[in-house]
């Protein structure tokens, strides 16, 4: 016999209210050449990273016209004030409290450059719920959008969360 409460759905009223509503807006510090260089060094370690990410003279000769950041660069690392831990998009107790990261899809626009200030916002985009080998399982899609100070699209990430 299971001690878990049987539920018909893992979708909560809070989710219904939040669907499609942008939230969690934040603004990065200005990105520096040094931030980009350190990111590139760490992520390419133990090999030297591409010059595009640290050599301005080289980068000027490329289509980009100057140093740019790799697409995986995170301009929100090391904030002074840490944002509160985000509430999960799922039930508060019992069934649906177990979760997994179902992966992500990122689409890229313009690159991040030294001096850029990036704004980010997220929204609960969609979900679907079905029976799987784990039982009743909720798949949520959270959309995160980054834009630079010129309003240009930098990146969109759709993350899939799995709750069961």
């Amino acid at each position, binding site marked *: 016999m299971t001690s878990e409460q049987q539920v018909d759905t893992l979708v909560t009223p809070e989710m219904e209210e939040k669907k499609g509503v942008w939230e969690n807006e934040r603004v990065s510090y200005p990105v520096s050449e040094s931030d980009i260089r350190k990111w590139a060094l760490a992520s*390419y370690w*133990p090999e030297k990273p591409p010059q595009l990410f640290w050599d301005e003279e080289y980068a000027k000769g490329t*289509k980009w016209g100057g140093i740019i950041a*790799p*697409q*995986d660069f*995170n301009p929100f690392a090391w904030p002074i004030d840490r944002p509160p831990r985000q509430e999960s998009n799922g039930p508060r107790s019992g069934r649906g409290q177990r979760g997994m*990261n179902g992966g*992500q899809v990122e689409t890229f626009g313009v690159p991040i450059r030294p001096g850029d200030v990036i704004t980010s916002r997220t929204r609960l985009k969609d979900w679907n719920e079905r029976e799987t080998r784990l039982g009743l399982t909720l798949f949520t899609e959270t959309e995160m959008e980054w834009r630079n100070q010129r309003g240009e699209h930098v990146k969109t990430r759709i993350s899939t969360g799995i709750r069961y």
Partner: protein
Amino acid sequence: MPINVYFEDVNVGDELPEWSRTTDFMSWNRYAAVNDEFVYIHMDDEAGRAALNERGAFGMGNLRYTYLLNALRDWIGDEAEIREAAVQYRAINQKNDTLTVTGKITDKKVEDGENRVYLETNVVNQLGETTCPGHAVVVLPNRS
């Protein structure tokens, strides 16, 4: 500037050049430092075992995603672009794993004014196990 690969020169079925990294605390800690990603399961063996990984601390998924982008970038060069990349996080990245990024071209077409090449991708460990199946779309320059 040198171009690594032109749109005209790639074909469906072509595979990414070999790209690998051996991972352990050195690589995880360096990545954690820049990404501000200090999580005990990636830093401490006891915490890793408490998370039900018998071998202790394990690598972060974000680093494997970074490896995918690095491998794509090394192939396409500085005059091309990555337009899209996707991963699912499956098997754990254990200490001293050698991770290899694999990719195979599944389609190429001109779309929205861009020379787009579609790839099926993965990050596999030294045992050939899938750790991050996914896909990518890159935009390549023309020869002329």
